[in-house]
Protein backbone atom coordinates (compact mmCIF):
# COMPACT_ATOMS: atom_id res chain seq x y z
CA UNK A 1 0.00 0.00 0.00
CA UNK A 2 2.97 2.33 0.49
CA UNK A 3 4.22 4.42 -2.41
CA UNK A 4 7.91 4.07 -3.20
CA UNK A 5 9.75 6.84 -5.00
CA UNK A 6 11.15 5.67 -8.35
CA UNK A 7 13.24 7.57 -10.87
CA UNK A 8 12.28 8.13 -14.49
CA UNK A 9 15.29 6.85 -16.41
CA UNK A 10 13.88 7.26 -19.91
CA UNK A 11 10.75 8.20 -21.84
CA UNK A 12 10.10 6.62 -25.24
CA UNK A 13 7.39 8.09 -27.41
CA UNK A 14 5.63 5.23 -29.18
CA UNK A 15 3.14 7.41 -31.09
CA UNK A 16 2.13 11.08 -31.05
CA UNK A 17 0.20 10.64 -27.79
CA UNK A 18 1.47 7.38 -26.31
CA UNK A 19 4.71 6.95 -24.41
CA UNK A 20 6.61 4.38 -22.39
CA UNK A 21 8.02 5.33 -19.00
CA UNK A 22 11.19 3.50 -17.97
CA UNK A 23 11.37 3.50 -14.18
CA UNK A 24 14.08 2.47 -11.75
CA UNK A 25 13.87 2.18 -7.96
CA UNK A 26 15.54 5.19 -6.38
CA UNK A 27 17.89 3.08 -4.30
CA UNK A 28 18.87 1.11 -7.43
CA UNK A 29 19.05 -2.14 -5.47
CA UNK A 30 15.40 -2.86 -4.98
CA UNK A 31 14.20 -6.02 -6.81
CA UNK A 32 10.78 -5.90 -8.36
CA UNK A 33 8.88 -9.10 -9.20
CA UNK A 34 5.57 -9.14 -11.04
CA UNK A 35 3.45 -11.46 -13.15
CA UNK A 36 2.43 -10.62 -16.75
CA UNK A 37 -0.91 -8.79 -16.71
CA UNK A 38 -0.40 -7.04 -13.36
CA UNK A 39 -0.38 -3.28 -12.93
CA UNK A 40 1.19 -0.60 -10.77
CA UNK A 41 -0.36 2.55 -9.32
CA UNK A 42 1.82 5.41 -10.56
CA UNK A 43 1.70 8.68 -8.66
CA UNK A 44 2.68 12.03 -10.15
CA UNK A 45 3.34 13.98 -6.99
CA UNK A 46 0.91 16.82 -6.49
CA UNK A 47 -1.27 15.72 -9.42
CA UNK A 48 -2.67 12.25 -8.80
CA UNK A 49 -2.35 8.49 -9.05
CA UNK A 50 -3.43 6.18 -11.90
CA UNK A 51 -3.25 2.43 -12.61
CA UNK A 52 -0.91 1.53 -15.46
CA UNK A 53 -0.10 -1.99 -16.67
CA UNK A 54 3.47 -3.15 -16.53
CA UNK A 55 4.71 -3.83 -20.05
CA UNK A 56 8.29 -5.00 -19.55
CA UNK A 57 9.57 -8.55 -19.42
CA UNK A 58 8.96 -10.23 -16.05
CA UNK A 59 12.39 -11.83 -16.22
CA UNK A 60 14.32 -8.65 -17.05
CA UNK A 61 15.62 -6.98 -13.91
CA UNK A 62 16.37 -3.30 -13.66
CA UNK A 63 13.99 -0.96 -15.44
CA UNK A 64 10.25 -1.47 -15.23
CA UNK A 65 8.27 -0.19 -18.20
CA UNK A 66 4.77 1.27 -18.40
CA UNK A 67 3.12 2.42 -21.62
CA UNK A 68 0.29 4.91 -21.38
CA UNK A 69 -1.49 7.53 -23.41
CA UNK A 70 -2.11 11.17 -22.65
CA UNK A 71 -5.84 11.13 -21.95
CA UNK A 72 -6.30 12.74 -18.52
CA UNK A 73 -4.72 15.15 -16.09
CA UNK A 74 -2.33 12.61 -14.55
CA UNK A 75 -1.16 10.98 -17.78
CA UNK A 76 -0.68 14.41 -19.35
CA UNK A 77 1.49 15.38 -16.39
CA UNK A 78 3.41 12.10 -16.79
CA UNK A 79 4.05 12.93 -20.42
CA UNK A 80 5.71 16.18 -19.45
CA UNK A 81 8.08 14.65 -16.88
CA UNK A 82 11.76 14.55 -17.68
CA UNK A 83 14.55 12.03 -17.12
CA UNK A 84 15.58 12.04 -13.47
CA UNK A 85 12.15 13.10 -12.22
CA UNK A 86 10.56 11.11 -9.44
CA UNK A 87 7.33 9.07 -9.69
CA UNK A 88 5.58 7.23 -6.87
CA UNK A 89 5.06 3.50 -7.47
CA UNK A 90 2.70 1.16 -5.61
CA UNK A 91 2.38 -2.42 -6.71
CA UNK A 92 2.30 -4.79 -8.40
CA UNK A 93 -1.43 -5.46 -8.11
CA UNK A 94 -4.04 -7.74 -9.59
CA UNK A 95 -4.32 -11.06 -11.38
CA UNK A 96 -2.19 -12.25 -14.27
CA UNK A 97 -2.47 -13.96 -17.65
CA UNK A 98 -2.91 -17.77 -17.42
CA UNK A 99 0.55 -18.71 -18.68
CA UNK A 100 0.69 -21.97 -16.72
CA UNK A 101 -2.70 -23.09 -18.02
CA UNK A 102 -1.55 -22.24 -21.54
CA UNK A 103 1.45 -24.58 -21.40
CA UNK A 104 1.18 -27.28 -24.04
CA UNK A 105 -1.58 -25.40 -25.84
CA UNK A 106 -1.83 -22.98 -28.74
CA UNK A 107 -2.03 -19.37 -27.60
CA UNK A 108 -4.09 -16.76 -29.41
CA UNK A 109 -3.31 -13.21 -28.27
CA UNK A 110 -5.74 -10.52 -29.40
CA UNK A 111 -4.79 -6.89 -28.79
CA UNK A 112 -6.49 -3.65 -29.72
CA UNK A 113 -4.82 -0.23 -29.53
CA UNK A 114 -2.94 0.34 -26.29
CA UNK A 115 -4.25 -3.08 -25.14
CA UNK A 116 -1.03 -4.54 -26.52
CA UNK A 117 0.87 -3.08 -23.56
CA UNK A 118 -0.59 -5.37 -20.82
CA UNK A 119 -0.08 -8.35 -23.14
CA UNK A 120 3.56 -7.62 -23.90
CA UNK A 121 4.94 -9.22 -20.69
CA UNK A 122 2.93 -12.37 -21.52
CA UNK A 123 4.46 -12.43 -25.02
CA UNK A 124 7.95 -12.06 -23.50
CA UNK A 125 7.27 -14.85 -21.02
CA UNK A 126 6.00 -17.18 -23.75
CA UNK A 127 8.95 -16.41 -26.03
CA UNK A 128 11.37 -17.00 -23.15
CA UNK A 129 9.88 -20.48 -22.71
CA UNK A 130 8.82 -20.99 -26.31
CA UNK A 131 9.04 -24.78 -26.33
CA UNK A 132 6.41 -24.98 -23.57
CA UNK A 133 3.69 -23.70 -25.90
CA UNK A 134 2.11 -24.75 -29.19
CA UNK A 135 1.43 -22.26 -31.96
CA UNK A 136 1.45 -18.67 -30.80
CA UNK A 137 -0.55 -16.13 -32.78
CA UNK A 138 -0.81 -12.38 -32.16
CA UNK A 139 -3.67 -10.44 -33.72
CA UNK A 140 -3.19 -6.71 -33.31
CA UNK A 141 -5.42 -3.87 -34.45
CA UNK A 142 -5.10 -0.11 -34.23
CA UNK A 143 -6.76 2.95 -35.71
CA UNK A 144 -3.99 3.70 -38.26
CA UNK A 145 -0.39 2.67 -38.86
CA UNK A 146 0.71 5.79 -36.98
CA UNK A 147 -0.93 4.33 -33.85
CA UNK A 148 0.96 1.02 -33.88
CA UNK A 149 2.90 0.43 -30.65
CA UNK A 150 6.34 -1.18 -30.39
CA UNK A 151 6.85 -1.14 -34.17
CA UNK A 152 10.52 -2.18 -34.10
CA UNK A 153 9.76 -5.00 -31.72
CA UNK A 154 6.88 -6.23 -33.85
CA UNK A 155 9.27 -6.32 -36.81
CA UNK A 156 11.68 -8.42 -34.73
CA UNK A 157 8.92 -10.77 -33.64
CA UNK A 158 7.83 -11.08 -37.27
CA UNK A 159 11.28 -12.29 -38.23
CA UNK A 160 10.89 -15.25 -35.88
CA UNK A 161 9.54 -18.48 -37.32
CA UNK A 162 7.68 -19.45 -34.17
CA UNK A 163 5.26 -16.53 -33.83
CA UNK A 164 2.47 -15.64 -36.27
CA UNK A 165 1.55 -11.96 -36.29
CA UNK A 166 -1.41 -10.39 -38.05
CA UNK A 167 -1.70 -6.62 -37.87
CA UNK A 168 -4.70 -4.67 -39.07
CA UNK A 169 -5.72 -1.02 -39.08
CA UNK A 170 -9.17 0.54 -39.16
CA UNK A 171 -8.08 3.12 -41.71
CA UNK A 172 -5.30 2.91 -44.26
CA UNK A 173 -3.17 6.03 -44.25
CA UNK A 174 0.03 6.96 -46.02
CA UNK A 175 1.73 4.01 -47.61
CA UNK A 176 0.09 1.34 -45.50
CA UNK A 177 -0.06 -1.84 -47.54
CA UNK A 178 -1.05 -4.23 -44.75
CA UNK A 179 -4.47 -5.45 -43.71
CA UNK A 180 -7.41 -3.08 -43.38
CA UNK A 181 -10.32 -4.19 -41.20
CA UNK A 182 -11.14 -4.77 -37.55
CA UNK A 183 -9.49 -7.27 -35.22
CA UNK A 184 -12.49 -9.62 -34.80
CA UNK A 185 -12.32 -10.33 -38.54
CA UNK A 186 -8.79 -11.69 -38.13
CA UNK A 187 -9.89 -14.40 -35.71
CA UNK A 188 -11.11 -16.71 -38.48
CA UNK A 189 -7.66 -16.50 -40.08
CA UNK A 190 -5.66 -17.41 -36.97
CA UNK A 191 -3.84 -20.72 -37.55
CA UNK A 192 -4.60 -22.35 -34.20
CA UNK A 193 -6.22 -25.57 -33.11
CA UNK A 194 -9.38 -24.22 -31.46
CA UNK A 195 -9.79 -27.36 -29.36
CA UNK A 196 -6.48 -26.87 -27.57
CA UNK A 197 -6.10 -23.12 -27.43
CA UNK A 198 -6.05 -20.43 -24.78
CA UNK A 199 -7.08 -16.93 -25.80
CA UNK A 200 -5.88 -13.72 -24.13
CA UNK A 201 -7.61 -10.49 -25.13
CA UNK A 202 -7.03 -6.88 -24.20
CA UNK A 203 -8.48 -3.83 -25.87
CA UNK A 204 -11.55 -1.62 -25.82
CA UNK A 205 -14.46 -3.53 -24.29
CA UNK A 206 -16.56 -3.18 -27.44
CA UNK A 207 -13.79 -4.78 -29.45
CA UNK A 208 -13.57 -7.65 -26.96
CA UNK A 209 -17.35 -8.12 -27.09
CA UNK A 210 -17.29 -8.47 -30.88
CA UNK A 211 -14.41 -10.93 -30.69
CA UNK A 212 -16.53 -13.36 -28.68
CA UNK A 213 -18.92 -14.51 -31.47
CA UNK A 214 -15.93 -15.04 -33.75
CA UNK A 215 -14.19 -17.15 -31.10
CA UNK A 216 -17.40 -19.11 -30.59
CA UNK A 217 -17.54 -19.79 -34.35
CA UNK A 218 -14.04 -21.26 -34.00
CA UNK A 219 -15.33 -23.53 -31.25
CA UNK A 220 -13.44 -21.91 -28.37
CA UNK A 221 -15.36 -22.04 -25.09
CA UNK A 222 -15.66 -19.08 -22.67
CA UNK A 223 -13.59 -20.92 -20.06
CA UNK A 224 -10.53 -20.78 -22.32
CA UNK A 225 -10.84 -17.06 -23.05
CA UNK A 226 -9.21 -14.50 -20.73
CA UNK A 227 -9.83 -10.76 -20.87
CA UNK A 228 -8.17 -7.81 -19.17
CA UNK A 229 -10.71 -5.26 -18.00
CA UNK A 230 -10.38 -1.56 -17.34
CA UNK A 231 -12.37 0.16 -14.60
CA UNK A 232 -11.92 3.16 -12.33
CA UNK A 233 -9.29 1.78 -9.95
CA UNK A 234 -8.31 3.89 -6.97
CA UNK A 235 -7.10 1.90 -3.97
CA UNK A 236 -5.95 -1.16 -6.00
CA UNK A 237 -6.58 -3.52 -3.07
CA UNK A 238 -10.35 -4.02 -3.18
CA UNK A 239 -11.34 -1.64 -0.40
CA UNK A 240 -12.73 1.52 -1.98
CA UNK A 241 -15.16 -0.12 -4.41
CA UNK A 242 -14.58 2.30 -7.28
CA UNK A 243 -13.74 -0.52 -9.67
CA UNK A 244 -16.48 -2.88 -8.54
CA UNK A 245 -18.06 -4.94 -11.31
CA UNK A 246 -20.93 -6.83 -9.70
CA UNK A 247 -19.31 -9.18 -7.19
CA UNK A 248 -15.83 -8.59 -8.59
CA UNK A 249 -13.26 -5.96 -7.78
CA UNK A 250 -11.34 -5.38 -11.00
CA UNK A 251 -8.23 -4.19 -9.12
CA UNK A 252 -8.01 -7.24 -6.85
CA UNK A 253 -9.87 -10.07 -8.63
CA UNK A 254 -8.76 -8.80 -12.04
CA UNK A 255 -7.77 -7.08 -14.20
CA UNK A 256 -7.36 -10.45 -15.94
CA UNK A 257 -10.52 -12.54 -15.73
CA UNK A 258 -11.72 -15.74 -17.31
CA UNK A 259 -14.40 -14.62 -19.73
CA UNK A 260 -16.65 -17.33 -18.30
CA UNK A 261 -16.53 -15.48 -14.97
CA UNK A 262 -17.45 -12.02 -16.26
CA UNK A 263 -19.42 -12.66 -19.48
CA UNK A 264 -22.74 -12.08 -17.73
CA UNK A 265 -21.55 -8.83 -16.18
CA UNK A 266 -20.21 -7.06 -19.25
CA UNK A 267 -23.58 -6.48 -20.87
CA UNK A 268 -25.16 -4.94 -17.77
CA UNK A 269 -25.09 -1.22 -18.50
CA UNK A 270 -25.57 -0.25 -14.84
CA UNK A 271 -22.21 -1.84 -14.04
Amino acid at each position, binding site marked *: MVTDPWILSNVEWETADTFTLCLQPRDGMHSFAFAPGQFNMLYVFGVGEVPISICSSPSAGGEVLHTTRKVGTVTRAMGSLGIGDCIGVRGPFGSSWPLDEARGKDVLIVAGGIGLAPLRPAIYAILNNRSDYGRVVLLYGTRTQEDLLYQEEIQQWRSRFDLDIYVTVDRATGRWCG*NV*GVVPQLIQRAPIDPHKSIVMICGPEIMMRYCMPELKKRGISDSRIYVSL*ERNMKCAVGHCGHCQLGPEFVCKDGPVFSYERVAGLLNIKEL
Partner: protein
Amino acid sequence: MKKLLELLANNPAFAELNPQLRDALVSCASECSFNAGEVIFTTGDPANEFFFIDAGSVQLTAHSPQKGPLHIQTLAHGDVLGWSWIFPPYTWHFDATAIEDTTAIKLDGRCVRGKCEQNFEFGYQLHRCFSQIMLERLLATRLQLLDLYGDEGGGGV
Protein backbone atom coordinates in the same frame (compact mmCIF):
# COMPACT_ATOMS: atom_id res chain seq x y z
CA MET B 1 -14.18 -28.82 -57.48
CA LYS B 2 -12.93 -30.20 -54.20
CA LYS B 3 -11.35 -26.86 -53.26
CA LEU B 4 -14.68 -25.01 -53.37
CA LEU B 5 -16.39 -27.66 -51.23
CA GLU B 6 -13.57 -27.31 -48.73
CA LEU B 7 -13.88 -23.50 -48.69
CA LEU B 8 -17.66 -23.74 -48.28
CA ALA B 9 -17.34 -26.22 -45.42
CA ASN B 10 -14.83 -24.01 -43.59
CA ASN B 11 -16.76 -20.78 -44.06
CA PRO B 12 -19.17 -20.38 -41.11
CA ALA B 13 -21.70 -18.57 -43.33
CA PHE B 14 -21.91 -21.49 -45.77
CA ALA B 15 -21.31 -24.38 -43.38
CA GLU B 16 -25.00 -25.25 -43.12
CA LEU B 17 -25.67 -25.25 -46.85
CA ASN B 18 -26.88 -28.78 -47.65
CA PRO B 19 -24.79 -31.01 -49.96
CA GLN B 20 -27.21 -30.80 -52.92
CA LEU B 21 -27.17 -27.02 -52.84
CA ARG B 22 -23.39 -27.05 -52.55
CA ASP B 23 -23.23 -29.23 -55.65
CA ALA B 24 -25.49 -26.76 -57.48
CA LEU B 25 -23.03 -24.01 -56.58
CA VAL B 26 -20.08 -26.10 -57.72
CA SER B 27 -21.64 -26.46 -61.18
CA CYS B 28 -21.22 -22.67 -61.63
CA ALA B 29 -17.61 -22.57 -60.42
CA SER B 30 -14.19 -22.38 -62.02
CA GLU B 31 -10.68 -21.79 -60.71
CA CYS B 32 -8.88 -18.53 -61.36
CA SER B 33 -5.76 -16.67 -60.31
CA PHE B 34 -4.55 -13.08 -60.22
CA ASN B 35 -1.05 -11.67 -60.19
CA ALA B 36 -0.03 -9.16 -57.54
CA GLY B 37 -1.36 -5.77 -58.58
CA GLU B 38 -3.88 -7.18 -61.04
CA VAL B 39 -7.27 -5.47 -61.06
CA ILE B 40 -10.05 -7.99 -60.41
CA PHE B 41 -12.96 -5.64 -60.95
CA THR B 42 -13.61 -1.92 -61.22
CA THR B 43 -16.39 0.31 -59.88
CA GLY B 44 -19.28 0.56 -62.35
CA ASP B 45 -18.32 -2.50 -64.39
CA PRO B 46 -20.87 -5.33 -64.76
CA ALA B 47 -20.86 -7.61 -61.70
CA ASN B 48 -21.44 -11.08 -63.02
CA GLU B 49 -19.31 -13.14 -60.67
CA PHE B 50 -18.13 -13.55 -57.12
CA PHE B 51 -15.10 -15.25 -55.62
CA PHE B 52 -14.01 -17.45 -52.74
CA ILE B 53 -10.41 -16.51 -52.02
CA ASP B 54 -8.23 -19.56 -51.53
CA ALA B 55 -4.75 -18.02 -51.16
CA GLY B 56 -3.32 -14.53 -51.30
CA SER B 57 -5.14 -11.31 -50.48
CA VAL B 58 -7.25 -8.69 -52.18
CA GLN B 59 -7.84 -5.05 -51.34
CA LEU B 60 -11.17 -3.32 -51.81
CA THR B 61 -10.74 0.34 -52.66
CA ALA B 62 -12.81 3.40 -53.48
CA HIS B 63 -11.28 6.02 -55.72
CA SER B 64 -11.07 9.63 -54.62
CA PRO B 65 -9.98 12.25 -57.17
CA GLN B 66 -8.05 14.06 -54.41
CA LYS B 67 -6.60 11.08 -52.53
CA GLY B 68 -6.45 8.30 -55.12
CA PRO B 69 -7.43 4.78 -54.11
CA LEU B 70 -8.68 4.52 -50.51
CA HIS B 71 -8.13 1.06 -49.05
CA ILE B 72 -11.38 0.05 -47.34
CA GLN B 73 -10.89 -3.58 -46.50
CA THR B 74 -8.53 -6.50 -47.02
CA LEU B 75 -9.89 -9.94 -47.87
CA ALA B 76 -7.88 -13.14 -47.59
CA HIS B 77 -8.14 -16.93 -47.45
CA GLY B 78 -11.71 -18.12 -46.94
CA ASP B 79 -13.32 -14.72 -47.53
CA VAL B 80 -16.01 -14.08 -50.12
CA LEU B 81 -15.29 -11.30 -52.58
CA GLY B 82 -18.26 -9.60 -54.24
CA TRP B 83 -21.99 -9.42 -53.69
CA SER B 84 -22.97 -6.86 -56.33
CA TRP B 85 -23.90 -9.76 -58.61
CA ILE B 86 -26.98 -10.40 -56.43
CA PHE B 87 -28.81 -7.11 -56.81
CA PRO B 88 -29.72 -5.01 -59.86
CA PRO B 89 -28.15 -3.15 -61.57
CA TYR B 90 -25.43 -5.82 -61.15
CA THR B 91 -22.50 -3.40 -61.20
CA TRP B 92 -19.53 -3.23 -58.83
CA HIS B 93 -19.56 -0.64 -56.05
CA PHE B 94 -15.82 -0.74 -55.36
CA ASP B 95 -12.54 -1.66 -57.01
CA ALA B 96 -10.79 -4.92 -56.14
CA THR B 97 -7.08 -5.52 -56.72
CA ALA B 98 -4.89 -8.48 -55.82
CA ILE B 99 -2.29 -7.39 -53.24
CA GLU B 100 -0.21 -10.50 -53.81
CA ASP B 101 -0.48 -13.48 -56.13
CA THR B 102 -3.95 -14.77 -55.41
CA THR B 103 -5.87 -17.91 -56.27
CA ALA B 104 -9.64 -18.07 -55.99
CA ILE B 105 -12.72 -19.97 -57.04
CA LYS B 106 -14.87 -17.87 -59.34
CA LEU B 107 -18.64 -18.36 -59.33
CA ASP B 108 -20.54 -17.31 -62.43
CA GLY B 109 -23.15 -14.88 -61.10
CA ARG B 110 -25.55 -15.36 -64.03
CA CYS B 111 -25.40 -19.12 -63.58
CA VAL B 112 -26.07 -18.80 -59.84
CA ARG B 113 -28.88 -16.26 -60.38
CA GLY B 114 -30.47 -18.65 -62.88
CA LYS B 115 -30.39 -21.47 -60.34
CA CYS B 116 -31.93 -19.17 -57.72
CA GLU B 117 -34.82 -18.45 -60.10
CA GLN B 118 -35.31 -22.13 -60.93
CA ASN B 119 -35.01 -23.41 -57.37
CA PHE B 120 -36.39 -21.10 -54.69
CA GLU B 121 -35.03 -23.30 -51.89
CA PHE B 122 -31.54 -22.85 -53.34
CA GLY B 123 -32.16 -19.10 -53.71
CA TYR B 124 -33.40 -18.79 -50.14
CA GLN B 125 -30.48 -20.72 -48.66
CA LEU B 126 -27.90 -18.84 -50.70
CA HIS B 127 -29.36 -15.46 -49.78
CA ARG B 128 -29.24 -16.49 -46.12
CA CYS B 129 -25.54 -17.22 -46.52
CA PHE B 130 -24.89 -13.85 -48.16
CA SER B 131 -27.03 -12.06 -45.57
CA GLN B 132 -24.72 -13.53 -42.91
CA ILE B 133 -21.66 -12.23 -44.74
CA MET B 134 -23.26 -8.81 -45.19
CA LEU B 135 -24.16 -8.72 -41.49
CA GLU B 136 -20.56 -9.42 -40.54
CA ARG B 137 -19.29 -6.73 -42.93
CA LEU B 138 -21.86 -4.26 -41.58
CA LEU B 139 -20.78 -4.97 -37.98
CA ALA B 140 -17.14 -4.56 -38.96
CA THR B 141 -17.90 -1.27 -40.70
CA ARG B 142 -19.73 0.01 -37.62
CA LEU B 143 -16.78 -0.94 -35.43
CA GLN B 144 -14.50 0.99 -37.78
CA LEU B 145 -16.84 4.00 -37.57
CA LEU B 146 -16.84 3.86 -33.77
CA ASP B 147 -13.14 4.77 -33.75
CA LEU B 148 -12.62 2.36 -30.85
CA TYR B 149 -9.02 3.26 -30.23
CA GLY B 150 -9.63 7.01 -30.03
CA ASP B 151 -9.37 9.11 -26.86
CA GLU B 152 -12.46 7.55 -25.33
CA GLY B 153 -11.40 4.02 -26.20
CA GLY B 154 -9.86 1.92 -23.49
CA GLY B 155 -7.55 -0.98 -23.77
CA GLY B 156 -6.32 -2.42 -20.56
CA VAL B 157 -5.37 -0.69 -17.37
